[in-house]
């Protein structure tokens, strides 16, 4: 568990505030002028301001008091102890942290918990049926061996769940396109694509019953 309000070491410490900082984001050069650096050795300790956030996650209301900079992914994992949402790259590329916000998939690492107030969040925990049985996308992943280590799986499951709501009958090509924004380092994606198609089948069978 992280401790709310505890400052972490700032990577810009040691630089003067006005010195331009050149870095890169996803391979692109970005130049910024950093804030006054956090100085753990001197200066006045600034207590970090906390904000009250009401989060509605998987149908349950939660009330947390966190720094404004708390990412939604961290709020879910640390404050709500819903550790099904995984944190991979933390800059929106890998897709492991994908959750549903009012039914639409979004990157939880690119949102602050405070911004999610008033929205209905669904995490991978919320994809399981009320009786504890696996949902259709989860079941399809089991049947098709759509995961190996499982790290990326929560992001795939949420992304595919939302995708099938919009496109209930995807072709294999469309299924591949649907998961293009999620990275998996184990499977080679073949079985994940199969799982998307199988999940669509399972959903149709349910609809027929």
């Amino acid at each position, binding site marked *: 568990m992280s401790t709310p309000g505890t400052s972490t070491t*700032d*990577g810009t410490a040691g630089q003067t505030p006005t010195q331009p*900082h050149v870095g890169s984001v996803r391979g692109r050069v970005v130049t910024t002028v950093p804030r006054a650096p*956090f100085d753990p050795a001197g200066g006045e300790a600034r207590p970090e301001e906390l904000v009250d956030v009401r989060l509605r996650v998987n149908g349950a209301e939660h009330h947390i008091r966190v720094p404004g*900079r708390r990412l939604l992914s961290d709020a879910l994992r640390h404050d709500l102890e819903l550790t099904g949402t995984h944190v991979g790259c933390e*800059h929106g590329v890998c897709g492991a942290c994908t959750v549903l916000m009012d039914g*639409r998939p979004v*990157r939880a690492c*690119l949102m*602050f918990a405070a911004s999610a107030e008033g929205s209905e969040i669904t995490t991978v925990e919320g994809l399981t049926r009320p009786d504890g049985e696996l949902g259709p996308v989860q079941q399809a992943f089991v049947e098709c061996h759509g995961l190996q280590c499982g790290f990326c799986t929560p992001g795939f499951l949420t992304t595919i769940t939302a995708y099938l709501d919009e496109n209930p009958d995807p072709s294999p090509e469309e299924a591949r396109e649907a998961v293009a924004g999620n990275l998996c380092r184990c499977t080679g994606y073949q079985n994940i694509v199969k799982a998307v198609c199988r999940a669509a089948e399972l959903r149709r069978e349910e609809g027929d019953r």
Partner: protein
Amino acid sequence: MKPAPFVYHAAADVEEVLDLLAELGTEAKILAGGQSLVPVLNMRLAGPEHLVDINRVPGLDAITVTDDAVRVGALVRHADLLASAEARDALPLLGQALRWVAHPVIRNRGTTVGSLVHADPAGEMPAILALTGGSVVLRSRRGERTVPAEEFFVGPMESCVLADELAVEAVFGRFPAGTRTAFSEIARRHGDYAMAGVGLAVRTDGPDGPVQDARAGFVSLTEVPAVLDLTPVLEGAVAADLPGLAEAVTEAVGSFVDPVDDIHATADYRRHLAAVQTNRLLAGLLAGETTTTTTEETSA
């Protein structure tokens, strides 16, 4: 990979945003979709003292089609604009380009106006704003101003928005009747930043008639969005003339774009991709492929 501390402000309305910006100036950043800003914060490439979250500000999520423009509010997500049949009918180039913006999950959250303010030379929407002769509406306590695209983009990752200003609306210009548009990109991986992208708007005299006007906009090929007027090369041309004009188009595009080398592609390769795509899109448009959206990728 966590942002440095900041004071979080959930603004309730535009007036509160403008008050906060007037008071905080350069210490504050606007948070809209956050799909470009939050990675920068997470990596601590930026560390604003204050973040003004506009996600709950009412009145900024409208898409309005007028006779000469498609107006897009500051909180319209890329996905919403792409889903708007009215906007796509009025300006098909929007739909043709928006499906190239990152991945659907990023488009669900990222805003079109935010990507304009971010002014990434690899961004699709800045190129489209320039190609449509569009503008951005900026508001502050000092008043409101409308800045045309050619003045809005100042440098790579740099727009002219001042510290106390909120970009409230983007205005994409609609093309005159008889204009056909197309857009394509080539990237190493699907959904990744383009090595080179081209948008094209060509007006002809009737469906099979000669070219009257032709313009191209570029992604990842110029420091700031810039529009190449291809009319001098293409005026009067019909589809059958294109093979003979390909070299002249290649020359015009190649001398106009100003790409840089990086790990993904050399400048020369990007220049080549720019010319190849421009010629392909032209051929498609003049052959009557009115809804061309070339899907092109190289295998990684």
